[in-house]
């Protein structure tokens, strides 16, 4: 009471004091807070995610013995192998050990052939990240384009066409989109290759042409979700009083859109983008299988079926780290654009 009373002397007369005080200390606190809040969410997510991943391996009851020795395994051989992989120790010791390993950048050795998992994943990650990354870029560009168009022409035919289109696309399962794209552009028109992957070292177009169809197929969902959220966000931002306020001050439509509406209306679309990233990584499994790409999705699926637990865990951990990092970026961007949204909640 005392501090604020001292500051607010004459406050009632002239309405002068900022309620939260001011100065550099205040700004530092605000910046720290905007970083601390997402971290307080994402650190637990990382640990819980890795814990679930490890728990999954333990619950599966799979062992390297089943993979390497087959039915002919003697109990001694199984025990020896289990000891070699450290599986004879208590669960939490194994978990701590595995976590420690992760922080040193190692994913352990494959149960199938004893090769370090990191080696097995190396090339495949390039394939998957190329597809997911391109899909993300397509999703952001076209999602924003359609969203902005629909909001600008709210309730007109363009809006209705985009709304209907995005609704239909969001309902289309990715494998249906993938099959349709192959049927039309690869089998029918023969414009683009249907399957396979070419490293970028062999030329940009060969690399890119193999990526287009899978990336487009993967991006459909993101495009329509981003577009819909952006439209909703912009339309509701247009209804806000501050738009009237800006109009009354004599600002023109363009300035109001770019300076005021876009900034506040982009919130829901950003959040959905954060949520879409795991879906993009997850969708890779399906897309890789359709387009015959040997990425980490198919690798995970194969490893899971054969029971190569360390390989599966490695893929999951990498995905979780990517998702967490991406969401941190989205979160910080959100807070910078819409600082008022970061208070409370």
């Amino acid at each position, binding site marked *: 009471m005392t501090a604020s009373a001292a500051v607010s002397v004459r406050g009632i007369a002239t309405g002068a004091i900022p309620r939260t005080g001011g100065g550099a200390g205040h700004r530092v606190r605000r910046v720290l807070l905007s970083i601390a809040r997402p971290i307080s969410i994402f650190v637990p997510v990382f640990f819980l995610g890795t814990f679930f991943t490890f728990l999954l391996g333990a619950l599966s009851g799979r062992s390297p013995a089943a993979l390497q020795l087959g039915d002919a395994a003697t109990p001694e051989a199984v025990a020896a192998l289990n000891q070699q992989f450290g599986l004879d120790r208590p669960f939490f010791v194994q978990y701590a050990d595995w976590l420690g390993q992760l922080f040193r950048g190692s994913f352990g050795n494959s149960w199938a052939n004893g090769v370090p998992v990191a080696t097995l994943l190396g090339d495949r990650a390039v394939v998957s990240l190329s597809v997911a990354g391109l899909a993300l870029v397509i999703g952001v560009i076209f999602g924003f384009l359609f969203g902005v168009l629909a909001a600008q022409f709210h309730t007109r035919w363009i809006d209705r066409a985009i709304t209907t289109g995005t609704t239909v696309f969001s309902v289309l399962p990715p494998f249906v989109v993938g099959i349709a794209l192959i049927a039309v552009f690869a089998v029918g028109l023969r414009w683009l290759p249907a399957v396979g992957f070419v490293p970028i070292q062999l030329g940009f177009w060969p690399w890119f042409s193999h990526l287009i169809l899978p990336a487009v197929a993967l991006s459909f969902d993101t495009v329509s979700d981003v577009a819909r959220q952006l439209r909703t966000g912009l339309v509701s931002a247009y209804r806000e009083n501050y738009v009237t306020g800006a109009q009354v001050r004599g600002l023109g439509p363009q300035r109001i859109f770019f300076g005021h509406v876009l900034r506040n209306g982009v919130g829901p679309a950003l959040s959905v983008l954060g949520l879409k990233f*795991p879906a993009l990584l997850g969708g890779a499994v399906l897309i890789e299988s359709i387009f015959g790409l040997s990425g980490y999705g198919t690798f995970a699926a194969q490893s899971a079926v054969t029971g190569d637990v360390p390989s599966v865990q490695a893929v999951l951990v990498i995905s979780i780290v990517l*998702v967490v990092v991406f969401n941190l970026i989205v979160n910080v961007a959100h807070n910078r654009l819409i600082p008022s949204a970061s208070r409370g909640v």
Partner: protein
Amino acid sequence: MIKTVLKLPSARIALVMLAFIAFITVFGPLLAPYDPLENTAQNLAAPSAAHWFGTDYLGRDVLSRILAGAPLSVASTVLVAGIALVVGAIPGILSVYATAVFEWISLRVVDTFIALPFLVFAVAMTALLGNGMVQAMIAVGLLVSPLFYRVARSATLSVARSQYVEAAVLAGATTGWIVRTHVWSKVLPPIAISLATTLGVGLVVISSLQFLGIGVQPPTPTWGGILASDLGYLPQQPYAPLFPTALILVTVLAFNLLADAIRDAAGESGRSLVGAKAAKANRARRLAASGYSLTPSKEHA
């Protein structure tokens, strides 16, 4: 509420479509004209009177395989949604009223579920835990549950912070009373919307797993599995994927229509869109009647 939903034409269309799907699911295997596993004609035959949808690469009747695959595809979707509802909605409501520790932990678990790469995790979980349909349903149900958690939690939160709940507290109401009298009616519509949406999403995910051969063994007919085998014979039968795809789309579309209908009936959106046409007509009529003509082009509102 249900009556209002039924008044909407889109809801009626959705229900007709769903009735059709339900019929196929229950009676499909009985209606199949051939044994879905048996080679009955030449491979990759075109649609004909004997084989309406043609035959696949092993000469099996596609119509029979689609009908026989319906229960495994649709029923498991319903179960997935059921699991997600129970696992998500109940903690969602509880998180508002239970201790802060429960709230924090449940929120972080939900955050984690959302952050997990959905399909990869579902595949890994199903395959590692025994590669059966039950494992697949549990995995997918768990991973979809955050939707219900969030929806139930936010609806409950907005009710819990409302003044009428405070008024009930001031009249001596217990938490149980508040949930029964005030919370239920607010939480049910959003949950119904999520349920309808999840049923659509669930079918896509289940079909995706079947497409990848996860959760089912090869000869068993499933919609996703049929699509996977069609993919290899696109040059010969480019039309083949249409049949299972159409069924999947009809189901997903019906559930989405239903979700939208419930949303409209719950009375949030859509009114200005509906009214725009009427407004235009009214304006034209007024201008014609008054002879008052001005054409002030309107700014974006």
